[in-house]
């Protein structure tokens, strides 16, 4: 009676298949070309507001609002090697489809996630926002740099790097289909990475 509906991205990882991996690698290869850069200041500002809003929602732990910024079939990906890599061949620091992303948030809300008890305080600086056209009219790639100050266990540390967002047109706006977070220290041993980047 309560069987999960087929193709519910909150309940099954059906879309994490070879096609997704192939598209992911293609989308995140060789996309930061000057020739494709969006130069219209108003459009760039729209994307700047999108990544700034995402940062604010995460700093405020507004996870439902944050998730609502994402497409139904989304990917949140933190590679373990600099310069992207292939998630079929390289293990990732994080690789969440919607189901696991919702698991991640559910876990943080149980009150028993000791690595977040007490919760970290974070402040994100998002800069150098650039947008790039893609082969698809309904999709853009965004690049932004981030500096997350994380206060936890009486210390503040810096997590820094750059993010690549693939956004897709949805209604009158844009949804995030993929967020790739490139941490500077991605291939090193990292202490307690328990926040959402």
């Amino acid at each position, binding site marked *: 009676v309560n069987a*999960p509906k087929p193709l519910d991205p909150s309940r099954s*990882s059906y879309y994490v298949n070879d096609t997704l991996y192939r598209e992911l690698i293609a989308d995140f290869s060789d996309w930061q070309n000057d020739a494709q850069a969006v130069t219209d200041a108003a459009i760039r500002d729209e994307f700047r507001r999108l990544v700034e809003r995402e940062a604010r929602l995460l700093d405020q732990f507004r996870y439902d609002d944050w998730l609502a910024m994402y497409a139904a079939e989304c990917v949140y990906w933190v590679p*373990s090697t600099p310069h992207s890599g292939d998630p*079929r061949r390289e293990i*990732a620091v994080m690789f969440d489809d919607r189901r696991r992303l919702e698991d991640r948030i559910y876990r943080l809300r149980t009150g*028993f996630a000791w690595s977040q008890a007490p919760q970290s305080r974070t402040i994100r600086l998002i800069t150098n926002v650039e947008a790039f056209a893609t082969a698809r009219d309904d999709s853009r790639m965004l690049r932004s740099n981030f500096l997350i100050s994380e206060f936890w266990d009486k210390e503040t540390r810096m997590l820094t790097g750059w993010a690549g967002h693939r956004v897709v047109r949805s209604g009158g706006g844009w949804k995030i289909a993929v967020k790739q977070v490139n941490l500077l220290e991605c291939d090193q*041993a990292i*202490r307690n990475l328990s926040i959402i980047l």
Partner: protein
Amino acid sequence: MTSRQKIGEPPIRLGGTALYDWDYLVQEDRAHRLIYTDREIFEAEMTQIFGGTWTYLAHESEITKVNDFITRRLGLRPLIIVRDAEGKIRALYNRCTHRGTTLCRFDKGNSKSFQCPYHGWNFLNTGRLRGVPWPDGYAGDMRDPKYNLAQLPRVESYRGFIFGTLNLEALPLTEHLGAIATVIDEWLDRNPGGKVVVCEANRFRFKANWKLAYDNSCDGYHVAYSHRSLLETENRFAGENAKGMAYYRNSPDTQPMYMRYNSIGADGVRDINALRMRTQEGFPNFGEVDDIANFEQIQRGLMAVYMHRGLGIPDRIKTHDDGTITAPATDEAFMREHFKEWKRLMQTRTNLAIRREP
């Protein structure tokens, strides 16, 4: 032929009169906090444990081609693990014999030789000194083996897993592995004839003594509470499909936990590899982060560490013919056995040596 060189008078500070009363520090049911906090014990561990017995260094898939190298550490010793020009796997000390400068600063690469960035001394990847700038300035013979890089005297592989030790009297690797080799075989034979390739790693670091990770490694007792957030997450659609951690929904003492893995056909390998990686990423993200938070809090609060769960209960712990010990998953039998071996290693007078090319 190779020349061997003794390291100091090992064990360095423990010879003659014992520095510590090991029997007091490690008792059957508890371990003293000093073994997690004392600087000198830590330094002795770096010789007695990381050096005195076999330690895993790397996997052969990380250095598949001739002249491939990766940099690693054995305890605190910096090493370059190389497949030399003749295909032999060596573990060279990553320090120039001139002033001790770190010779190679890259995580991995391919090189026939390593040239020190300080004065330019150049070493072949066999460890032999190839040349120094303006050798006329040296009165002695620069071909003296003492200028060749130090290297581990013993490097052996088991099914692609490379181990090293400084202990000339250590058992051959396969004998040292003993019954655990069967478990390694079972794991690797899931894809018969298939190659195992290292695909990066989820790497963690924590501000606490290294042994806390081992105290946790086989501990089924902490799971239900330390990982309650993960268990609640995995059980939130309980009944639909039992996941791995669902084991802990019931009392884990009443169920066997030994898992046997079946082999998979070649057809499934590609999909399963990617799926296996996605599965692997789950626990580091939703479980290990909480373990690390607890390790750091143990280090902060350290007093005696008790490890007596299951001890003294008749018929609970069984030793089998092959030396394997089984106990309920929540017992601290594994920790008592780790510490028995730790204590033995810490008190053993070991014949440690480095080796240099002649």
